[in-house]
């Protein structure tokens, strides 16, 4: 039932999940390692074997497969998605009045983490050297936001209610209370698109009558490496495609137990000549918990492995940019990095 692969092929393409460890984790297909194999970099071979399959894509999450690429490059994309794709986030908080119970610095920290729906590609980085000279910032690198809210007692509340929603007005400060103050020509550039936080219902602070907040905020462009608030993804991760091979026919009650060792939908029982036989239906759904190894009579019937060049990426955006745009930007960042060093190598200062 299972086609046994030659040993060399297995070492070259799969990471095997054994009972006590994982084998063949690192890529070893470098020229000279395997006699008889030509492992030098061949762009044609890469173009032939590489493919991307989009599994699902909606406005905030995306799942896609990248096949035929090495782990180091797939990991580079993942790291760039987390830390080097720029976004706009609140950086400077000018607090004119804060009589709430939340401390200034805690409030500023919370405001920084609110995701702001502004396309970072339309803005520039702020020049680091001119911090002290210009604290205003210009229209090309700053977004100005304002939060001005005062809590008061509700005159129309009934005498003996104790529900704060009824007794007070504006006692919860949500991110929907943050308003945009266009500077310079931003009102024309962003005419049909209001800059506001991505989510309206992020609770920022709670107030009681008499307390107020009067805050001006400046958003700048930054990357996740600098501060996690600039990271455009809720998370970006990948896993390798699992591969489950049955080394012998498994039937009857053992087949039932084998089915329960894996995630639902991985193994199916089908009827062959009157007996129940286990069959691997969809190994992609498996979470590789290796439960089968805990059963002594089942552990030698199955071989668990993962394909080393098949990556199942999951990208969850915070809502600032759609996930397919994020992946595109991440790939462009990697190209920019390479270009930077290429131009540095070719510049006259390197001899």
């Amino acid at each position, binding site marked *: 039932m299972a086609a046994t692969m030659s040993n060399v092929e297995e070492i070259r393409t799969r990471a095997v999940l054994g009972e006590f460890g994982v084998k063949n984790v690192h890529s070893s297909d470098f020229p000279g390692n395997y006699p008889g194999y030509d492992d030098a970099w061949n762009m044609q071979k890469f173009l032939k074997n590489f493919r*991307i399959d989009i599994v699902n894509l909606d406005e905030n999450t995306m799942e896609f497969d990248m096949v035929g690429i090495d782990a180091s490059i797939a990991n580079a994309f993942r790291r760039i998605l987390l830390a080097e794709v720029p976004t706009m986030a609140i950086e400077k908080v000018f607090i004119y009045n804060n009589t709430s119970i939340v401390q200034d610095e805690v409030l500023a920290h919370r405001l920084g983490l609110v995701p702001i729906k502004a396309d970072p590609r339309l803005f520039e980085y702020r020049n680091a050297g001119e911090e002290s000279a210009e604290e205003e910032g210009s229209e090309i690198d700053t977004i100005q936001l304002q939060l001005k809210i005062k809590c008061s007692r509700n005159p129309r509340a009934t005498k003996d209610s104790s529900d704060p929603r009824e007794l007070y007005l504006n006692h919860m400060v949500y991110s929907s209370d943050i308003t945009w103050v266009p500077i310079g020509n931003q009102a024309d550039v962003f005419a049909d698109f209001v800059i506001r936080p991505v989510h309206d219902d992020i609770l920022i602070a709670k107030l009681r009558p008499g307390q107020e907040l009067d805050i001006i905020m400046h958003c700048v462009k930054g990357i996740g490496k600098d501060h996690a608030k600039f990271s455009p993804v809720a998370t970006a991760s990948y896993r390798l495609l699992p591969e489950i091979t049955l080394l012998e026919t498994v039937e009857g009650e053992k087949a039932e137990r084998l089915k329960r060792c894996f995630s639902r939908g991985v193994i199916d029982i089908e009827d062959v000549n009157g007996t129940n036989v286990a069959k691997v239906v969809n190994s992609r759904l498996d979470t590789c918990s290796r439960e089968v190894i805990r059963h002594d009579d089942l552990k030698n019937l199955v071989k668990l492995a993962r394909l080393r060049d098949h990556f199942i990426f999951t990208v969850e955006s915070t809502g600032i940019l759609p996930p397919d745009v994020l992946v*595109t930007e991440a790939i462009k960042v*990697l190209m920019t990095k*390479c270009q930077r060093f290429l131009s540095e190598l070719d510049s006259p200062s390197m001899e």
Partner: protein
Amino acid sequence: MAGEGEKKPVLEMVQADGADEGCVTFVLHDEDHTLGNSLRYMIMKTVDVDFCGYTITHPSESKINFRIQTRGGVPATEPLRRGLKDLTEVSQHVLNTFQARVNEFKKRQEDPME
């Protein structure tokens, strides 16, 4: 060479005295595993490279020491340049494939709705 006035160095070459041009350590500033590992992979796939590795000297400093040793008298900047070019080509191909597939997926999503 690099670092005149306020300019920050981007790439430096460190070579032992008397060694030939094939064994060089490059210091790449403001880089980490993201570029280091992927570049190392691309350069290791070149045939005339004897040794290729990178190290992050200290986690608090964002720079990597990238060492290339070649065979046959090839200057070490050659595999570095080729590796960077190949990595750029790979990224470009990934970008094109990805954008094509996304557009296809989006179109397929719209069609059954009609």
